[in-house]
């Protein structure tokens, strides 16, 4: 649970404001049974700092995640959005909704923060991506991040 209470419009403003990756050459490194890459991100006006993280399981190709955390000057970080692979079921605690093995997007919401639940406890199923690279492309686009070269997912013509 984050100590900072944000409204939905404040969350949307943080998600949508123009941002730039400061270390686009960050290397992927192996940590235990996954690989990870961490980017530093700063808003265009220089007022806000963020962390963009990329994770891929080394054991399960469908287990991946990319996310954006807001790093406020004081208080606890807030995970604004996280784009997950389909490796696990997810349940939305407030809505009582559960979905099985599908890609899904977590997003911080005012109602979860106000209820004292995890920032990004709410998630929605998505078909926008199927791979880690596709998830990264989608997140960079949604969060208005520049300075990082990402590619949209190739369409699957056999599907």
């Amino acid at each position, binding site marked *: 649970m984050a100590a900072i209470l944000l409204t939905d419009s404040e969350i949307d403003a943080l998600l949508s404001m123009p941002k730039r990756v400061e270390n686009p050459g960050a290397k992927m490194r192996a940590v*235990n049974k996954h690989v990870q890459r961490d980017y530093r991100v700063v808003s265009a006006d220089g007022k806000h700092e963020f962390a963009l993280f990329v994770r891929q399981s080394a054991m399960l190709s469908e287990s991946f995640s990319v996310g954006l955390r807001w790093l406020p000057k004081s208080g*606890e970080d807030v995970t604004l959005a996280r784009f997950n692979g389909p490796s696990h079921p997810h349940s939305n605690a407030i809505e009582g909704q559960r979905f099985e093995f599908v890609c899904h997007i977590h997003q911080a919401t005012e109602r979860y923060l106000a209820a004292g639940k995890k920032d990004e406890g709410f998630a929605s199923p998505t078909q926008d991506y199927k791979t880690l690279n596709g998830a990264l492309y989608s997140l960079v686009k949604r969060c208005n991040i520049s300075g990082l070269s990402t590619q949209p997912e190739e369409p699957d013509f056999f599907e």
Partner: protein
Amino acid sequence: MNINEIRKTICSTLCADVDVVERGEGLLFVSTPFSFSDGDAYSIYLKSLPTGGFRITDMGGTLMHLSYENDTDKFREGMRGKVFNQILSEMNLGEDDGEFYIDTAADALGSGLFRFGQAITRLHDLTFLNRVRVESTFYEDLRENLRNHVDAERIHEGYIVPGVANARDYPVDYFIEGGNMPLYLFGVPNRDKARLATIILQHLIAAGRDFNSMVVFQNASDVPSRDLSRLMNAANDMIASLDASDDFERKLLRRVK
């Protein structure tokens, strides 16, 4: 409802909440009510063991999940490292480079799954020992310690020293009345606060104020030596940590009585 009916209800609802799903390449995902605080289900997989029975494994998913918001290397250091190892030992949880597992006989699979879920929950709770939360606890403990020794009406938190230029930019954590001179006390949980306390003290000294000062560290050994030296030069009394309660009481009361 009698005890047999209650037993039957518990058994049937427990079974309804658990499912086993094939996820390819002979891997079985065990779907349970166990989930992280963000609503994502725990990674619980079954692998058949050549000797019979099963390996219940997270396939490395727990530490990957924790790595979204934490430096997982820190789970193996200091106090967190001690708790981490204690959890592995108490829960009989095996680890292979960040993959957690329990090997169990087929007829003990149910209890093994419960134990595995409990173990993952305990590992997840290590996140409560993060820096911001520990610092917050430090300030709460400092406030409580002060109130144990000095009447509340003599303690002024977030004090702005009157008659000092730009005083609002140089607030004092605590002004404590009662001594020959005002006592200005600072809590210092980290390097940044050590630097800030040094700047504030130097500003007040430059402004020609007469006061005593005390610095209480969360853990003085965590502060880099150069920052520590500068702060030592600026402050009168120092307490290495709140664990030094007798020293804290002695130094505090000497200044305010």
